[in-house]
């Protein structure tokens, strides 16, 4: 009899707490739509249905999203979702980066990383179907344009090449990123483990691996990659001639990934660094720029966050 009473008391107390919790709801800031993304209606409809709750200022919460404590998680998703990508404030993204964000978005959807799974299980309508993916891919494919004989790009490439062979690019001091990674000029004498034709942004890349990386490929020990592995990925403009032949144009940037499972534990064991233009300007306004790298590499978490399928050469 006594036991039963205590149980009832606990239940009652929990109920009171639950009700009280409902009065301390997280606030989801109401922000105006300043520049909604421009896209064909069928594309927009998919984004609205599947992404807008977390990536726009037009969040439409259902009653079950508003019950605490679940509402706290929802609010957190919205806050960080809007911070990385906001379709309602599209103009705030620099014009050349907008297309990149869209390709990234579609890739996150293809990989099943977005919409977030715990959200999708409750909001079934947000599910991205095969048909949705076809619409999204067709839309992006149609934006890819070849530009044979682009004289501006040719001139930029010519000038860079001349400076480079004249030895005018050697800076006295090696630049360093805010997370403490120094530029490694010797990447050019490492082995190439693959190349990519990035028609999404008109660049082409060579991915180099240091000796440890190359040995790991030969030994078949690449998931996870061993500590000491370093990748360097170099990107150039694509220079296309009238016959569809594409050569490397201006050097755009170099990116590194350094494996050290302890030192870089916070970023899944990889130290990320990017240096832009031949001036090798370290990328990132703060040391947390790496969350961008991790975010886009996350869909390949089951390959130790590495996209490249290396060649055995």
């Amino acid at each position, binding site marked *: 009899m006594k036991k039963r009473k205590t149980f009832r008391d606990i239940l009652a107390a929990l109920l009171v707490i639950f009700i009280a919790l409902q009065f301390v709801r997280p606030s989801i800031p109401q922000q105006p739509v300043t520049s909604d993304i421009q896209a064909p209606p069928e594309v927009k409809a998919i984004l609205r249905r599947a992404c807008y709750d977390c990536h726009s200022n037009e969040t439409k919460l259902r009653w079950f999203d508003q019950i605490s404590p679940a509402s706290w998680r929802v609010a957190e998703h919205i806050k960080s979702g809007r911070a990385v990508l906001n379709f309602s404030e599209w103009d705030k993204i620099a014009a050349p980066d907008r297309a990149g964000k869209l390709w990234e978005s579609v890739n996150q959807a293809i990989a099943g990383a977005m919409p977030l799974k715990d959200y999708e299980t409750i909001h079934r309508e947000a599910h991205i179907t095969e048909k949705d993916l076809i619409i999204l891919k067709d839309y*992006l494919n149609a934006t890819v344009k070849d530009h044979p004989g682009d004289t501006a790009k040719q001139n930029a490439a010519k000038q860079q090449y001349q400076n480079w062979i004249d030895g005018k690019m050697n800076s006295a001091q090696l630049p360093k990123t805010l997370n403490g990674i120094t530029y490694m000029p010797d990447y050019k004498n490492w082995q190439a483990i693959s190349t990519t034709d990035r028609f999404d942004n008109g660049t082409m890349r060579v991915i180099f691996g240091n000796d440890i990386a190359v040995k790991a490929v030969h030994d078949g020990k*690449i998931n996870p990659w061993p500590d000491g592995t370093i990748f360097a990925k170099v990107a150039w403009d694509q220079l*296309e001639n009238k016959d*569809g032949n594409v050569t*490397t144009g201006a050097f755009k940037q170099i990116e590194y990934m350094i494996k050290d499972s302890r030192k870089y534990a916070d970023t899944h064991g990889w130290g990320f660094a990017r240096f832009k233009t031949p001036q090798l300007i370290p990328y990132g306004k703060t040391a947390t720029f790496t969350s961008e790298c991790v975010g886009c590499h996350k869909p390949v978490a*089951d390959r130790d966050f590495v*996209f490249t399928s*290396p*060649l055995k*050469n």
Partner: protein
Amino acid sequence: MKTGLIVSAAVVLMASCKAPVAPDKIVNNQASLPASFSVNNMHVITSSINKRQQTMSTLYGNRIAVDRARSGKILAAGEQLVLVVWKQKPDENWFGANIPDKIESIEQVSTGNDPSAIGYKRYEGNPLALVSDTTGNKQRIVAIIAQQASVMP
């Protein structure tokens, strides 16, 4: 309802911890060079793409060739150049990229003590076999030695 919830929970768990992909599924075996054509003592001079043929290629060189190309000079003595051409395929991990697929051809250009004595060999097919027909060799040599090094600061 209850089973729905259990299934949902299972889906969330599965999605959040996908099993690691096996290493031999990650290596691009199809595009890898046979051991007898290894370029593991060579370095990259440049890479290129042919949009019409949907191929991509990489030009490798020995130390002499790489140093020569990276300083914008003309063919020297003792050079070895290897041009590998692959068919392209879409990158399964990134919509928006193509990566190497099967090898289409491997061409080898070399110079002896006299840089004007140029050797040339072309291999095609699977397994790669020496092509005996020499028509067009001259143009191929010219095209390969004319490739400019990619800017690598």
